[in-house]
């Protein structure tokens, strides 16, 4: 079986995930809508997962993929709780613009 990285190269995967991660950071900084911020967080998590799988292929080892499973489970839990918090914020404030969330600020 031929290693697929012979054709592509691990550097391309590294650059792809770096750019994807930066797009996620950019989305968190740029948008005010809390849902879009959550989507950007998902993009960041996916960039890291992609790099995990690429390095799992590079080392020919399954542990990277097992780690991706755990990260997916954590992402699912995080999104469920986060969206529930957003729904209750929306009920109380009537909007989910993150600039309105200043209640904990003294």
């Amino acid at each position: 079986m031929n290693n697929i990285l012979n054709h592509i190269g691990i550097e391309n995967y590294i650059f792809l995930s770096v750019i994807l991660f930066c797009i996620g950071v950019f989305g968190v900084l740029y948008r005010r809508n809390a849902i879009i911020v959550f989507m950007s967080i998902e993009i960041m998590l996916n960039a890291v997962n992609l790099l995990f799988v690429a390095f799992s292929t590079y080392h020919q080892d399954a542990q990277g993929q097992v780690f991706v499973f755990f990260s997916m489970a954590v992402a699912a839990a995080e999104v469920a709780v986060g969206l529930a918090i957003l729904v209750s914020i929306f009920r109380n404030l009537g909007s989910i613009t993150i600039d309105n969330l200043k209640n904990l600020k003294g």
Partner: protein
Amino acid sequence: MSTVLIIFCVLAAITLATAFLTIFSRNPIHSAIYLVICFFSIAGHYLLLNAQFLAIVHVIVYSGAIMILFLFTIMLMNLNEEREVHRPRITRVGAIVSFCLICLVLIAIFINSKPIVGEYVTTGEDYQSIKVLGKILLNEYMVPFEFVSILLLVAMIGTVLLSKKEKLQK
């Protein structure tokens, strides 16, 4: 250029373009749809790396569960029409500058660390079929696996508690 490289480039272009469109589209529903396309292209990357089981799980969890959750929340809050106020210009410029700086720093780091990457070995043994993954998951990673189930249970209970309507004080 080999065929695999062309496929990789096309998939990478789709991933990056849809990720940008997710952030820049004004309508949250459109963002969610673009994010679904982004997740599908990442699943394509997994398939390209020969991690079939992971690709299937990725499609089920992300494109299925998480995106349905996003879409339902968007529709529940009735955010279809846009009422987002723009950030002040200084914040946006700051976001763009920090994006460029983070990109520059990370890419520079990885370019300079390139000599560490040696040549690609092929051991020939099976390391990513469902059988092997299941054995590793239930032997070496048994305790984290159980903790993940507890985490999901706690997240479920927390979600139900959070999204329950509070009773009015009498």
